[in-house]
C-alpha cells in the first residue's frame, strides 16, 4: 500500500487550483520507518507527503482545532478515519464544502512491531466511506468480528477481570492524551475537567482514572470508530480499545445499529432508540 505519488499529485493539483488552504497528510520522520502527521500550507511542501502502511494517525483529529475549522482543507482518510469524519460531519464539527477528502481503500496499517495492527485485522470497513477521490481498490464491507481480546477477557472469571482492569486504571496517569488525540472528543470543555469537587474526580488515583475512563468510554459508545488514536497516544500503553470495543459489541449485538460513522447523518446509538431494544435485563 503506497499512494505517496498519487497523494502528492492531488495535493499539488489542489494547491495550484487554489482549492485548498491547507493539506493534512503524513510525512516520514526519517528514522524507524515512522510517519507523523504534517500540515502543509504551500505548494512547494507537497513533496514531504507520503502514504504507506505506516500512515497510522487518524488525521481527522486535526479538524477540531480552530486553525483548521474555517479553512479549506484537503486530507487523507483511511476507512476508520473516514468514519470519524462522517460523524464529525453529522455532528456539525466540520463543513463538507470546506473539505477535499482523499479516501483510501486501506489494506491495513502496521503496528510498532511491524505486524498488521489488530484493529486492521478486525476492520469492518477498510474503504473510505466518504471521499472526493478514492485511491486503491475497494474491498467492501466485512463481517463484524468480536474483538479477540474481548473474547478472551469475557471468558475469564470476574475476579480476574477486575484485577486486570484495576491494574489498567492504576497505571493511568490521567494525562488525557487519549481524549486529546480522539477526533470525536471535540468538546469545548471536557466534562472530566469540571472543577467542582463533587462532580468529577481530578486526582490521578485508581478511582479517579476509573471515573474518567468510564465516563469517556461511555461518551464514545456508539461513536468510537476504532481508529485507536487514543491507544497509540497513551504513554502508559493502556489497552483502551477494550472499553470501546466492549461498548461497540454490546451496541452492535443488541441494537441492530450501523457501526459508528458508516452512514451519513447516522448519529451514535445513544441518540436514537428502537421499540424492540432488549428489555430482558430489566425487572
Amino acid at each position, binding site marked *: 500500500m503506497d499512494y505517496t505519488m498519487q497523494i502528492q499529485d492531488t495535493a499539488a493539483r489542489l494547491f495550484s487550483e487554489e482549492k485548498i488552504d491547507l493539506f493534512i497528510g503524513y510525512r516520514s*520522520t526519517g528514522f524507524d520507518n515512522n510517519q*507523523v502527521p504534517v500540515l502543509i500550507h504551500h505548494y512547494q511542501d507537497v513533496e514531504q507527503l507520503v502514504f504507506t502502511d505506516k500512515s497510522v494517525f487518524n488525521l481527522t483529529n486535526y479538524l477540531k482545532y480552530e486553525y483548521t475549522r474555517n479553512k479549506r482543507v484537503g486530507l487523507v482518510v483511511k476507512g476508520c478515519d473516514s468514519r470519524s469524519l462522517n460523524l464529525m460531519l453529522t455532528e456539525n464539527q466540520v463543513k463538507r464544502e470546506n473539505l477535499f477528502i482523499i479516501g483510501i481503500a486501506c489494506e491495513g496499517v502496521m503496528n510498532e512491531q511491524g505486524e498488521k495492527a489488530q484493529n486492521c485485522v478486525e476492520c469492518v470497513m477498510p474503504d473510505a466511506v466518504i471521499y472526493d477521490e478514492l485511491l486503491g481498490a475497494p474491498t467492501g464491507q466485512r463481517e463484524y468480528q468480536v474483538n479477540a481480546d474481548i473474547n478472551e477477557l469475557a471468558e475469564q472469571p470476574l475476579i480476574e477481570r477486575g484485577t486486570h482492569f484495576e491494574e489498567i486504571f492504576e497505571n493511568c496517569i490521567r494525562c488525557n492524551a487519549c481524549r486529546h*488525540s480522539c477526533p470525536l472528543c471535540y468538546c469545548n470543555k471536557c466534562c472530566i475537567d469540571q472543577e467542582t469537587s463533587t462532580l468529577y474526580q481530578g486526582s490521578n488515583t485508581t478511582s479517579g482514572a476509573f471515573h474518567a475512563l468510564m465516563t469517556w468510554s461511555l461518551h464514545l459508545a456508539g461513536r468510537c470508530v476504532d481508529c485507536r488514536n487514543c491507544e497509540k497516544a497513551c504513554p502508559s500503553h493502556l489497552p483502551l480499545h477494550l472499553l470501546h470495543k466492549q461498548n461497540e459489541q454490546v451496541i452492535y449485538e443488541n441494537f441492530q445499529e450501523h457501526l459508528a460513522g458508516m452512514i451519513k447523518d447516522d448519529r451514535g446509538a445513544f441518540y436514537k432508540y428502537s421499540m424492540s431494544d432488549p428489555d430482558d435485563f430489566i425487572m
Partner: protein
Amino acid sequence: MNLTTYITEPAGLQSFYEAIVATNETYAPVEKLGKFDYKQIKTPPECQPDSPIEQTMSIKPLFFPKSARVMKYEATAEGTDVTDTTEDPLAGKRVILGVKHCDARGLQVLDEVYKWDYIDTDYQKRRENTIIISARCEQAATHCFCTSLDYDVEQSDAMDVAVINGLDGKVYIQARTEKGEHFLKENASGLAATNGSALEEMKKQYQAFSGSFRLKMDYKEINGKMQSRFESPAFEEVATNCVSCNTCAFVCPTCHCFKITDERIRDEGVRYKSYDSCNNIYFTLMAGGHNPRPAKYRRWRQRAMHKFVYYKERFGVNLCVGCGKCTISCPVNISIFEVVNQVSNV
C-alpha cells in the same frame, strides 16, 4: 571526600543486586503493559536494570507522585476539621536500581525547584531516604541527546552509585556521592575496590556511548539564541502538529507542574495534588475567565522556553535532561530537540 570504585564480574553484580533486594525496599524498572516503570520489586529476577531507555517511564513518580494527598477535611455543624495526611507510602528508606542517568539528572534538576521558596518536606524526605543506583546506558536511543546539554553525563553526581558495564566485560560500581560511598561500604563488602586503570575502562565505555548519539547540538549556542526568540514564528509552526495531549509533561522526568483538586463524599473530602501540564489549555485559565495562553503555540513556547531558558536563568540548570521520553511518547512525534533547533535557527 574519597569515593571508591569497585570492580566485579556480571555475576558479582547480580549478587550485589540480590543482596540489596534482600535487605532493602527496592525499586527497579519492571515491565508492565509493554513498558517499563520503576516499581517495587521483591525478588532479584524481577529486576531489569538494563531496560531499554525508549520504553522506560521516568523515575519522577517515586518522588513526585502522580497524585498525592495533601490533606483531609471534614465539615461538621461546628466547623471544618483539617487533618494533615502524614502517612506517606514513599517516604521510607529505599533503594532504586537501574536508574538511567537522565532520570537521575532529572531529580537533581527538580531539587532546585523543591528547595527554592517553599520547601516541600515530603519531597525532601523521599530524596534523603533514597539511594539511587544508576545503570549507564551502553548506547544512545533514537531520541536521546543527554550529552549535548549543560551537564556532565560521565561524571554526574546525580546518582549515589553508578554501575557501568565496561567494554572489557567487567562491571564497575562507583560511588558518586558520600551517601553512595556509605551505602557501598555496607553493601558491597564482597567486591574489590579498584585503582586508576578502571577509570580508563570507564572512560572507554563512555566514549563508545557518547559516540552513538544521533542527536547532537551546541547547548551554549542554542541557549543563547533561544533567549531572543520569544517571538519566533517557528513556535506556531511546530505547534500546529501538536494535539495538546499533555503526554510530554507527564512522562518528563523534570516537569513539575501540578493541580490541586478536592474530592468530597458526604462532608468528608480529600485534597489532591496531581500532575498537570502547561500544554493543557486550562492550565492558565483564570477564575475570571481570562486565559493568557489560549493558543497552542503560546503553550508550546512556554514549554520550550521554560525548559531551555527560564529555568536556566533562575536556577542555573537546564530543565531538559535530553532523555527523549517526550518525543517517544508523543503521538505525533514532536521532538523537543527539533523544536529548539528550529526556533534558534530561524
